[in-house]
């Protein structure tokens, strides 16, 4: 389940008004989220929640559900 504040941080960075995002959604399925903008989305999420991901943690992400779970684990 993707929480509204994560969805908001992602859509805000990609300048999208709205987009259907669920656990299985991958970056490639979201308009504007390509390999070049990927790092900006990660930075925006880190900034919005005041966390820092390790490089390997980011490289392991396969879906937005993975990102939500990683974020939850950081926020305790």
């Amino acid at each position, binding site marked *: 389940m993707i929480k509204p504040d994560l969805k908001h941080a992602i859509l805000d960075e990609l300048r999208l008004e709205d987009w259907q995002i669920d656990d299985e959604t991958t970056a490639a399925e979201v308009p504007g989220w390509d*390999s*070049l903008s990927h*790092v900006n989305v990660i930075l925006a999420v880190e900034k919005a929640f005041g966390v820092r991901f390790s*490089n390997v943690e980011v490289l*392991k992400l396969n879906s937005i559900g993975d990102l939500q779970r990683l974020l939850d684990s950081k926020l305790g």
Partner: protein
Amino acid sequence: MYFDSLQYIIFVPIVLAAYQFMPSRWRWAVLLSASIGFYAALRMPLLVIAWTLVVLTSYWCGRRISGEGNDLRRRTYLWAGVAAQLVILVSIKYLRNILRLILPGFEISTGGTEWFSTLGISYYTLQAVSYLADVYLGMTEPERHLGRFALYLGFFPKLLQGPIERAGDLLPQLRSLGSFNYANVRSGVLLFCWGLFKKVAVANRLAPFVTAVYYDPHGYSGISLIAATYMYAIQILADFSGYTDMALGVARMFNIRLTENFNSPYFATSIADFWRRWHISFSRWILDYIFKPLQIQWRDARKVGVVGALLVTFLFSGLWHGSTLTFVAWGLLHGVYLASSILLKPWREAVYHKIGLANHPWRRAFQAFVTFHLVVFAWIFFRASSIADSWYIATHLFVAATTRISYATTVRGGVMGAILNGRSARDFAMLGAAMTVWFLGSTFSKIVRLQDQPIWFRWSMYYAVILALVYLNAYDDVGFVYFQF
């Protein structure tokens, strides 16, 4: 025994028959034996040794990474495995130079055996690195069966020139090798023939036109250089995508789906889009294992970090193709194209709005036109023999005939003379016919699913491909461009 040789056309049905009659649990052994035999038949013994070392080191490190709980030790095994692949790759690539350095005047009497070939090694070492990284990141399970793992790295259709397969895509298929499937064999044969057509009828017919100019470009200028450069862009696509179709076709006969390496790359609307469509398995590799880690590592530097990651990634891409300055220049040029597209994006959008192209239906066509020409310009550096040659070509594309040869071809022969450069009009007409068949066939295959058509129609198409192969074949022995990497 290359893909366009008679031996290979005899070899594949023999392997297919052995595969069919073997119990399913031993089919991997048939394919592995065939792959080792295929590699050995090239009479390049060091390559078989190198491949064996790659298999053993990556297999062992993969097992160690997955069996280890301590992250520092897992990382140590990962880097040890990657370093082993690099050492094997560099040793084989530069063995002749190393030996000459140690033993001045060193030469080896070959007697038909090619000791210093590097055929295939660049592809399966990259595949081994991707396997180790994926095991480390938990994206794939390590393969416990050594024979099946060796087949993953050495499956003969993809051994010499890729595609570079991800473990998660190919290993599961090798674990359940299916029995004879008529539909797969039929479509595999057709795809093989179609790839062979692209190679022998299109790429091999273009090669002499290109070579005539690029062999000594200083004799030419203007139209001759432009025509040869456009022709090279088409030659390299027909050559490499033809090879890939042949590889995919043969793999399909054994019920194995390999990665598509091309998706109409010259219709790309940006350089980033081009790299999503050209040599896709290699692009994915450099994106996942070089660009992304660097991009994440340097993320605090924002755009500067992305630009740096792009330049390093495409410098690697250039060096992977060859250690000469021409390949470095080609790689860096693509890195600069991509970096510029990021840095100039706000201005580019403003210009599109100003000239009314922002939401215009012609925008995509305009972008495709610009992208294609940027790619073609970069091919000059890829194809030329030296930096001096590529610089000469790049700076004489729009210079009128000044040299003896270009005067003779352009002024006396007109535009056609400049394009033909001594080749006959018949050669050019045959080339035109082959390219027309290629274009129609490619377009047709995107619109119509052949397997859904009635039998008379399917067989008409099969005969059409065979006839095109027979009548438009260049009958020239021209090696595959991507074998050299």
